[in-house]
């Protein structure tokens, strides 16, 4: 008698621990599900969550699938702000006319995340809520001065990207909270953005990266992969002016590595990562400066 005949599952067919599932129809319902159930987690695209559930690195008791919440998938421009719903997929960001016009760096970076299949499911909200220190969007959104909107049973609150990322896999989105949208200032004349880094293969995981944004000579520079959360390079921001060239950027960046305490792993020693961080900043800043001139 085979396993199939007796009605049990083939060995290996059940990789995940038992989990309860709900697919709410409204944001209010999603928030109440998340706050009413212990061990509940929001399920966005699932491109990380489903895989870490296999490894038991995450073991939620309840999954609250956000797939039916169309209001979280919209991308729109309101005044001078680009509003991206937390459930917008990376593919939809790549194809968005609003993103193209108001902050094209977001589409450019989205196109370098993983692969087509992952971008078709993976969402911007999922990418930032995970806050894997090697993820693309945390440093970029810090450099762009984004604001996150979080809903809870207590209401809605806004958290600047600078304060949103709290630790490895930890953000301002607490139990019972739901990230609903990410607001990014639309780029005007005099704005330029850049992102550079070193990855494991094309479109691979970052070993080190930096995102830079300039608006009329005011710089924001954030580093990824060097700490649990994106690190603002404040001294570099202050040293950079409106007109930058290769030599002045290198001068502004000199000494940055020594202020960092990056992790080391099989891909890079801490010292090498310091060096990569400096190089990434130079490249990101020069890219942003060139684009600001256009």
């Amino acid at each position: 008698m085979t396993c199939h005949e007796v009605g049990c599952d083939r060995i290996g067919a059940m990789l995940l621990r038992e989990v309860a599932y709900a697919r709410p129809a409204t944001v209010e319902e999603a928030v109440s599900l998340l706050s009413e159930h212990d061990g509940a987690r929001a399920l966005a695209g699932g491109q990380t969550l489903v895989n870490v559930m296999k490894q038991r690195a995450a073991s939620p008791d309840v999954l609250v699938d956000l797939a039916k919440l169309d209001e979280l998938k919209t991308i729109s421009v309101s005044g001078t702000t680009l509003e991206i719903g937390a459930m917008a997929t990376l593919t939809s960001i790549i194809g968005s006319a609003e993103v193209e016009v108001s902050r094209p760096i977001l589409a450019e970076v989205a196109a370098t995340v993983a692969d087509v299949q992952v971008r078709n499911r993976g969402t911007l909200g999922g990418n930032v809520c995970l806050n894997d220190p090697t993820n693309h969007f945390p440093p970029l959104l810090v450099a762009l001065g984004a604001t996150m909107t979080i809903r809870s049973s207590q209401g809605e609150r806004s958290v600047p990207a600078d304060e949103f990322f709290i630790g490895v896999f930890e953000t301002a989105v607490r139990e019972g909270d739901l990230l609903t949208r990410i607001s990014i200032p639309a780029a005007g004349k005099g704005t330029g953005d850049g992102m550079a880094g070193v990855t494991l293969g094309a479109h691979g995981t970052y070993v080190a990266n930096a995102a830079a944004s300039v608006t009329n000579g005011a710089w924001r520079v954030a580093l990824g992969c060097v700490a649990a959360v994106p690190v603002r390079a404040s001294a570099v921001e202050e040293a950079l002016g409106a007109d930058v060239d290769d030599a002045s950027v290198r001068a502004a960046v000199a000494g940055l590595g020594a202020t960092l305490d990056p992790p080391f792993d099989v891909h890079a020693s801490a010292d090498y990562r310091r060096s990569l961080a400096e190089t990434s900043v130079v490249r990101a800043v020069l890219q942003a400066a060139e684009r600001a001139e256009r």
Partner: protein
Amino acid sequence: MSTTPITSQVVTVTVNGERIEKDVPARRLLVHFLRDDLDLTGTHVGCDTGSCGACTVHLDGVPVKSCAVLAVQADGATITTVEGLAGDELTPLQRSFHEHHALQCGYCTPGMLMSASALLAENPSPSEEEVKVALQGNICRCTGYWNIVDAVVAVGKGGAA
């Protein structure tokens, strides 16, 4: 009022044109639903970590890795697996894989075909570079990729050969 989370539910999907209604546990991956519940074993489990793309299927027309999707998440969706590509005859893409020797062991081939067919549906004459980007999520350990890329590019140029 809110929905009560449940550990299994009835999902309704259209797979390769056939409407299917089935009770599935919430923890079942789409790839296992296809292979074990529907006996569509053309979709392969490779790495089971969302990396290799052997499990790629079309979910509402776009390629996804079915090992990184729960079957319940596919409720209401239209799914195409590798079994759904060909009718009585192989598709030009499948013929091209055959003619270009674009496979050796064949394990990755269903996923390659699903990613490549999604690309061709959107971009009928992709460049070599576009093919490489579209197949980035599919790993092949035998071929070195050259013949796979050649096979897809050749279809775009109007012939399997």
